[in-house]
């Protein structure tokens, strides 16, 4: 595994569509990208993809020294059809879409009605807006809300007569990979395919390292819909430790830098009530030992990630959070520094390989 491979994995992951609730294609791709680094995969009741990579037991022991669960959500935000009106589609959000960045966007509509088998890769559509020439100065200043937006497939009304497109059908935003200067990449769905790439990358690095803990690498579903998948996955796996992988806000002109992090300066390690101080300490130690730059991300409350769900599962799970800074989150032009993706993968692999039979007790010393 190396940085070039991880970048390639990321590009493949972002070119697949997988909205909350319809992650199957992403899951399929994750299985194939993880390849032999995972011993066995299973899919749970909600569609979480759970991959088990066994650790090598320590000398004198028959079983792994512990179980760690990694969570990287594989769903992305998008839109859904609420009504078909003479060929134009009314829209609802699937996750936190900002209507302002949807206007003028290309989309892919996935029909599910009769005849839809002919369109496995969906139909191209466009979110149009009324010509500015026809609007008053006032109207041009106003944000168009989602209720007033329509997807136009450019097809005649007769095309829809058999019910090809149905209420609830998924509409993915198009945001193809664009390589920018400085090792940066723009694409839709870097939230959270970056983390899925980090997870697969870490598994690849672990393949060449020794680790004594069993690793449950979970590509979770429906995070954008309320951390739904992670709740169920953490209950089912019942790990000793959990690490959530997500993206965070990168420095952006116009946004106060109290809440953002530098790009290309490494991943962030979350710090706050949601994260176990012992896990934080060990993440920092791994980063320092491996000379991986990192930033501390203060999170005074809800981290807004799968970590929030994992921590309070059953009798409680010590949890950590590694995030990669991304600009323009929840838009089709999310931007990341590829070096950060690799750094996060190496940090995660390094953290896991340093876990042994004494680690849980060590972590617990932070909460005497």
């Amino acid at each position, binding site marked *: 595994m190396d940085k070039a491979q991880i970048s390639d994995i990321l590009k493949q992951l972002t070119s697949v569509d997988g909205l909350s609730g319809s992650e199957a294609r992403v899951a399929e791709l994750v299985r194939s990208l993880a390849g032999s680094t995972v011993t066995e995969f299973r899919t749970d009741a909600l569609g*979480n993809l759970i991959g088990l990579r066994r650790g090598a037991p320590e000398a004198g022991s028959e079983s792994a020294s512990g179980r760690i669960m990694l969570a990287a959500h594989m769903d992305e935000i998008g839109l859904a059809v609420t009504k078909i009106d003479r060929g134009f589609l009314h829209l609802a959000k699937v996750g936190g879409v900002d209507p302002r960045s949807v206007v003028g966007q290309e989309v892919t509509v996935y029909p599910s009605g009769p005849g839809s088998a002919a369109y496995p890769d969906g139909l191209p559509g466009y979110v149009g807006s009324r010509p500015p020439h026809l609007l008053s100065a006032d109207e041009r200043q106003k944000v168009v809300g989602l*209720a007033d937006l329509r997807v136009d497939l450019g097809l005649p009304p007769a095309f829809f007569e058999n019910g090809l497109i149905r*209420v609830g059908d998924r509409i993915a935003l198009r945001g193809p990979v664009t390589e920018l200067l400085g090792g940066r990449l723009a694409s839709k769905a870097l939230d959270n395919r970056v983390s899925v790439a980090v997870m697969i990358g870490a598994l690849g690095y672990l393949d060449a390292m020794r680790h004594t803990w069993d690793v449950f690498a979970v590509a979770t579903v429906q995070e954008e819909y309320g951390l739904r998948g992670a709740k169920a996955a953490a209950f089912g796996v019942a790990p000793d430790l959990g690490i959530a992988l997500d993206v965070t806000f990168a420095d952006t002109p116009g946004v106060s830098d109290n809440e953002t992090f530098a790009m290309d300066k490494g991943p962030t390690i979350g710090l706050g009530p949601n994260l176990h101080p012992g896990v934080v300490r060990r993440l920092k130690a791994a980063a320092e030992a491996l000379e991986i730059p990192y930033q501390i991300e203060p999170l005074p409350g809800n981290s807004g990630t799968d970590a929030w769900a994992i921590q309070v599962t059953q009798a409680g799970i010590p949890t950590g959070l590694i995030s990669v800074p991304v600009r323009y989150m929840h838009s089709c032009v999310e931007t990341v520094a590829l070096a950060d993706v690799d750094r996060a993968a190496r940090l995660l692999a390094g953290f896991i390989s340093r876990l042994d039979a004494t680690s849980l007790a060590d972590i617990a010393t932070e909460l005497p």
Partner: protein
Amino acid sequence: MEQLAKRLAEAFGVSGFEEEIRSVLLEEVKDLVDEVRVDSLGNLIAVRKGSGGGKRVMLAAHMDQIGLMVTYVDEKGFMRFANVGYIYALASWGGQVRFADGTLGTVGLDGRVKAGRTLPELRDYYIDTGATSKAEVTQKVGAVAAFWPGFASQGNTWFSPNLDDRAGCVVLVQLLRDLKDVKIDHDLYVVFTTQEEIGPRGAQTAGYAIEPDLAIAIDVTLTGDIPYASPAMEVGLGKGVAIKVQDSGMIGHAGLNAKLIGAAESAGIPYQLEVLQGGTTDAYAIQVTRAGVPATALSIPSRHVHTPSQIVDQRDVAATVRLLDVFLRGPIDL
């Protein structure tokens, strides 16, 4: 079914205080199932054992409705209240309410809100039982009231303040009646849940206890067929049972939905697909219990939800019963 609806609609049952509706439902179902129990949240769980080889199916309809709880009784006997569940400030003025003991009142608006100048908030309202002093009022802090009157019908239309979700309760009782003496493979856990309107809460603990293989909530949904409907919604009154693709809390299990759609189509049951923006159901809670449960909801289209006079079309209620009936008679492979 109409008599059943009337009986259920007229039973008192605000979130957290469902004793009366629970005992009415207990009477309705006790001879139609093998076992009934009440858990610590007050859920009524009725178990109908299957003939074997089937799935463990949880069906949930909430027996609670929104209401008002007295927070303060002033010297003149006017009662300030807190909402129990989501109450529209806009839909409260002049609403008639009834307390558990039968006392009636009208929701009044105090003089601080100059009509037309600002929208009132719940704090601007009070309940007026017609008393002129505190001594005449029997209600104390903590007393609970719900919108009243209960049930009326007209043609295919049912009116009641609590069709959310007494209509769903009607479906489950009617289903059990229709299935009497019918052999089905599946074990049915028919749960009349509590505190959906303030949670969902009852569904969460019931889901944990039952550990179903799949779950279907029966609740109401909004319609997009009113003037200037916003946001747009295809669901309409009288067009059949709605199958939940998504609402603001959850996404219906795609595989389970596909099976329900298949059953509706093969039996010729009118159905519609639902995307609800603004609201969720018991399925939201059940779906993430333990290690996850394939879950969805069947919805009865309703207009004027959470106002003192909601509407459903009884043909949609009947379609919901039929769909469940057809679905449960066959094998369920997800």
